[in-house]
């Protein structure tokens, strides 16, 4: 066996190009369906996990998938806002508790999300450095965001202007980093969290008066590029809107019990302006579509597999014909037919083994890359 392995390896090594094509062809045929199945399965599990930890989302009427996905994963938010009063009203009904979210801003292209401090407890997020009980102008940074932006407690980060041509718009805010979150393996790792008040400041609904010693904040924006909240000028900031009309993008709703869930669902079912969506149902609906696409790809992969096997078979047959003289020489010298068949089988087994190892490596790499891009736990 040792000699057969030696001979097979020498053959594969000598005809490197042909061997590499066979290995790569088989690797892709094996790795693609396995990797896509694993990635989709892991992504599905990750989506379900976050959805199951988020019972309902309350938001403005519109695309329900957008509302749920953007509230869970903080994507580019072009959702219509609702009033904070809508959320407070639900809380006053005692049928459930609500955690409002306010999206729509970024800092160096990373989402800035306005939340109450209760959000951290709800998501079981804790600081690895600093604290989470933010005040106006403070920011708590997710672990990956902190790594990408190289932020630490005490640093400042300037929010992005909404549009380069937004001359009449609101100025950015230079946020003060007060805490870095422990990694959670969720979308929360890639976010900058501020208080709801800070997100309203970013909306231009609040302004303050400058402290000439420390502040660059100027409510009139004359010659000042950005706002900065400091301990000295914090008290001068105030809201320029009715508190009941302050906007939020959505709210995470946790019904008190099953009865509360039923009542809340009924309440918002016929609302003209609001919708209440059960996250797990929406995610299952999305995953059902993904499964349909997966089924299509599975069929496609079966055809690719058949084509690849035919291709490999053709190469094996052609190779055996090309090697007829060589194999006859071996038999003339004294090799058995079993030996020459075994030799060719060993070569094929080595190619399949190499393709298998490469497939595992590619699958693991794919899972790692997908994990980074898809917020998978």
């Amino acid at each position: 066996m040792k000699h057969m392995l030696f001979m097979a390896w020498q053959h594969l090594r000598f005809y490197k190009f042909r061997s590499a094509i066979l290995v790569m062809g088989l690797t892709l045929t094996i790795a693609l369906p396995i990797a896509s199945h694993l990635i989709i399965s892991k992504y599905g599990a990750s989506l379900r996990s976050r959805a199951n930890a988020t019972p309902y989302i309350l938001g403005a009427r519109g695309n329900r998938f957008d509302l749920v996905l953007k509230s869970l994963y903080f994507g580019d938010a072009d959702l219509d806002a609702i009033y904070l009063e809508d959320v407070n009203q639900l809380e006053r009904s005692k049928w459930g508790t609500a955690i409002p979210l306010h999206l729509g801003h970024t800092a160096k292209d990373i989402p800035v999300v306005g939340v109450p401090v209760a959000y951290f407890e709800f998501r079981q997020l804790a600081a690895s450095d600093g604290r989470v009980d933010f005040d106006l102008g403070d920011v708590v940074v997710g672990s990956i965001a902190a790594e990408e932006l190289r932020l630490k407690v005490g640093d400042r980060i300037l929010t992005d202007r909404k549009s380069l041509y937004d001359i009449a718009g609101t100025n950015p805010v230079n946020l003060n980093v007060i805490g870095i979150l422990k990694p959670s393996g969720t979308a929360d790792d890639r976010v900058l969290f501020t208080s709801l008040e800070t997100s309203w400041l970013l909306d231009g609904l609040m302004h303050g008066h400058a402290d000439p010693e420390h502040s660059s904040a100027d409510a009139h924006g004359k010659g000042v590029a950005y706002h900065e909240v400091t301990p000295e000028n914090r008290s001068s900031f105030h809201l320029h809107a009715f508190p009941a009309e302050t906007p939020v993008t959505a709210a995470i709703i946790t019904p008190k019990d099953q009865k509360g869930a039923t009542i809340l669902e009924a309440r918002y079912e016929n609302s003209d302006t609001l919708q209440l969506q059960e996250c797990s149902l929406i995610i299952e609906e999305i995953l059902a579509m993904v499964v349909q696409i997966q089924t299509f790809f599975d069929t496609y992969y079966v055809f690719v597999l058949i084509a690849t096997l035919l291709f490999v078979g053709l190469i094996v047959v052609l190779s055996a014909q090309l090697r007829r003289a060589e194999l006859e020489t071996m038999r003339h010298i004294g090799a058995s037919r079993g030996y020459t068949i075994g030799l060719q089988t060993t070569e094929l087994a080595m190619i399949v083994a190499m393709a298998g190892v490469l497939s595992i490596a590619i699958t693991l790499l794919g899972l790692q890359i997908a994990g980074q891009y898809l917020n998978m736990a």
Partner: protein
Amino acid sequence: MVQFTDVEFTYPDRAFAVSIPELAVDDGQHVAIVGPSGSGKSTLVNLIAGALIPQKGSITTCDTKLTGLDDAARRRFRLKRIGMVFQEFSLLEYLNVRDNILLPFRLGALTMPSDANDRADQLAQSVGLDRHLTRYPRQLSFGERQRIAICRALITSPSIVLADEPTGNLDAATTNEVMAILTDRAKASKATLIMVTHNIELLNRFDRTIDVTQFATAAHQ
């Protein structure tokens, strides 16, 4: 010693047959097999090697009655006792010179001796190929390739070396060089040399010449 007694062989398609009532080759003899194309030279070599088995009669090679052995035993016998040299060199392109010489030990029926590498290197040195041990056949001349084939035939220290027109593809100068190496090496290892050739100029190098025309019979209808 090679002994043929009342041998009759016909190919399965019955297109060609040989009949050899009596043929003996002594140990250590150098024998040339001659005859026109298609007269049965290669058939005779294959019968001696046990690669073909006659329908009648018996063949004894090196005190072993080949006609009484099964296929596996004949293959083992061939690997152990017979070295073969072919006209087309029949080297494996993907093995280097040393591994081509060691090929008989890698075909599954013989145990590779611990000094096999040294033996291969010595053989290569004796035919002037010691500087090319790690090169591949394509990188060598025809003469050098045939010298590798001779080393491969001798690596198992065979009792008989069968050569089927080993100089058929070589020019005159290289033919002389290869013939000198083949006969010298066979003599040095006290092996019987049986060689098919068309080249009558080479016949004076042999102890004896066998013309196979006498053995060929008409095709059976």
